[in-house]
């Protein structure tokens, strides 16, 4: 993130020193008026890359030379820096695959096209308003949300059944209190009930706050402010309690990334691992023969909106560069990529949940195998992550929230110290962006 700040500063400096005048007459967008449009895709799993490439080929076959699209392989690692440099240099890809969380600064910086006047009615109708909210900032829509990734519980079926605990469903999830009880039941000998992978603690801590009616980021007087009240901190406190008091959650897992917990999960050291939905692919690929696992919904909070089942997500999006001259063609390509059948294929390739109503009904996804049905059923409970559209969030996340939450989960600081850091330091950062 330090690099991101650096790049942002550099971009501003370059603009201020008149460097942008160099761009005069250099054209815009990579496609310009002719030549193929560049589609930057961040697909990385084999199946997903294949589907993306197949769809691009299909589009190119059906369209004239002037609407051809070139598939450009990007990477989640460093995509922000790559895009910022390309935007500043006036050579950004025409169609951009990214995450809604990453769009805020680009939308405010004027790098992305506002899609409101370009979106076909059928596409607008197909995606629920809750999903459109996830890509709407500063009064505009800057991306088509097409894939989303909820948090789920992946559980060792054998240990779960042995414990005698009720198997939760999307309609009847565990309550958080019930989850704590189950974790106690599952903790036996060297086996922990749960392993919270908290190498990247911020997004999950904020997004799960929705289950208890919290949000961490609130709107007050037209401005974003950070609060960390009881509803905001409920899940965070619960995790802390499981690690330090109940000892039903493995302390060693706190420093792990999601995939690091899988060996312990397969070995029976952890009975449940809360992970992003797409991790099912790794579980399926790496699980030893005969290992049985099940995908469960996250626990629900009591007395919270949406039955306590709401969860914040930051969907993957398709956006159009502001510099692109052929915005209508770019939009037509996005509409093609997000047709129900195509969206479902993309979701299947990435092991994610599609946003489209019809895509969610695609038979290929509606199967109990690999927990697909669980993900599809909780799709209606997904809401825009409270961090979306908040300017200054990346800085708060990297400089304040990540170290503070890691310290709290690790037992180094108290809840009130955590609150002070998140709220006081955080609001100072947000204030700088909202002057």
């Amino acid at each position, binding site marked *: 993130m330090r*690099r991101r700040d*650096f*790049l942002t500063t*550099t*971009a501003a400096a*370059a603009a201020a020193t008149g*460097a*942008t005048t*160099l*761009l005069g007459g*250099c054209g815009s967008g*990579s496609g310009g008026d002719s030549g193929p449009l*560049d589609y930057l895709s*961040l697909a*990385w*799993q*084999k199946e997903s*890359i294949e589907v993306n490439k197949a769809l691009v080929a299909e589009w190119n076959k059906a369209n004239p030379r002037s609407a051809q699209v*070139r*598939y*450009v*392989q990007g*990477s*989640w*690692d*460093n995509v922000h*820096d*790559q895009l910022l*440099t*390309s935007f*500043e*240099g*006036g*050579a950004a*890809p025409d169609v951009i695959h990214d*995450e809604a969380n990453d769009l805020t600064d680009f939308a405010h910086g004027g790098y992305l096209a506002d899609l409101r006047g370009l979106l076909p009615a059928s596409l607008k109708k197909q995606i629920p308003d809750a999903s459109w909210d996830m890509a709407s900032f500063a009064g505009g829509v800057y991306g088509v949300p097409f894939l989303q990734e909820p948090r789920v519980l992946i559980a060792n079926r054998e240990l779960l059944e042995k414990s005698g605990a009720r198997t939760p469903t999307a309609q009847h999830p565990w309550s958080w209190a019930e989850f704590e009880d189950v974790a106690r039941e599952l903790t036996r000998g060297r086996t922990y009930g749960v392993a919270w992978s908290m*190498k*990247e603690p911020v997004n999950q801590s904020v997004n799960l706050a929705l289950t208890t009616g919290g949000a961490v980021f609130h709107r007050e007087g037209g401005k974003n402010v950070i609060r960390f009240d009881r509803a905001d901190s409920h899940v965070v406190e619960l995790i802390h309690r499981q690690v330090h008091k109940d000892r039903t959650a493995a302390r060693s897992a706190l420093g792990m*990334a*999601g*995939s690091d917990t*899988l*060996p*312990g999960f*397969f*070995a029976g*050291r952890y009975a449940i691992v809360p992970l*992003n939905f*797409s*991790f099912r692919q*790794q579980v399926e*690929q*790496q*699980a*030893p*023969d005969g290992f049985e696992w099940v995908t469960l919904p996250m626990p629900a909070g009591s007395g919270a909106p949406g039955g306590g089942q709401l969860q914040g997500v930051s969907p993957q999006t398709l956006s159009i560069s502001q510099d692109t001259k052929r915005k209508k063609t770019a939009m037509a390509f996005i509409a093609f990529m997000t047709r129900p059948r195509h969206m479902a294929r993309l979701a299947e390739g990435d092991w994610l949940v599609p946003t489209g109503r019809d895509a969610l009904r695609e038979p290929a996804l509606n199967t109990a195998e690999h927990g697909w049905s669980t993900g599809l059923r909780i799709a209606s409970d997904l809401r825009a992550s409270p961090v979306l559209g908040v300017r200054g969030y990346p800085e708060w996340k990297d400089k304040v929230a990540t170290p503070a939450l890691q310290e709290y989960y690790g037992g180094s600081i108290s809840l009130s110290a955590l609150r002070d850091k998140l709220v006081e330091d955080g609001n100072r950062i947000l204030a700088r962006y909202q002057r």
Partner: protein
Amino acid sequence: MNRTRGALARTGQYLALVCYLVFLAFPLFWLLSTALKSPQELGSVDPSWLPRHPSLDSFSAAFEQQPLARSALNSLIVAGCAAAVSVAVAVPAAYAMVRYRSPVSKAATGWILVSQMFPFVLVIIPLFMVLKGFHLINSLTGLVLVYVVWNLPFALWMLQGYVRAVPASLEEAAAIDGCGRFRTLVSVVFPLLTPGLVATVMFSFVTAWNEFFFALVLLKSPEKQTMSVILTHFIGAEGAADLGPLAAAAVMATLPSLLFFALLQRRLVSGIMSGAVKG
């Protein structure tokens, strides 16, 4: 007694050397071991030193998923050209800076030091704009130029030391024997600079081969991307990674550097000049 102590000291030295070699070789060994393991073995909580059922599946998956061969060729072209051009420019420049002392050479030396203080994130956007003006975005030529500029200060700095180590009296002797300036350089100075040239070529090559960010930002077409960029395509959001194919691709990315080093390392042998000047 002395012989025993000597043998013990030698054993200790060899032991230390072996430990150091193990320390250096372990990451490579682990990478290769990971590349040869199955996904199930990679997911095991008790990792084994050696793959229980070695398989080349990760290699075939890596080649299937990403254009590894083409990206390796691109990396080879870019790194090879960058190394060759860097050295071709640095050798005469270093020679001139050492042998012709003037305010210009002092300023140039200062500039070399200053240029090392710029982090690449500071120059990437202006650089992008300049390259775009010359239609060198998405071009291997553009990337080679960037690497040459990036490598040149350090290459110059390295070579200056080697040039300084060549006794000026050798050149004077060559001049007395009737050699012109060019002949002196080609027949006397350059052969003595061989270890320095090899070290500089290796430094420039490996730096360009491993570089990631410039390549990521400047190359857009999949068919032009270099190995370091392709490697990141095995990594997804939030640290999820296709570990087997990633390790296999990383092994493939490491091999050319190792090979290059193996071919050139004997040229690095120092002491080539011992006895060149008497007295």
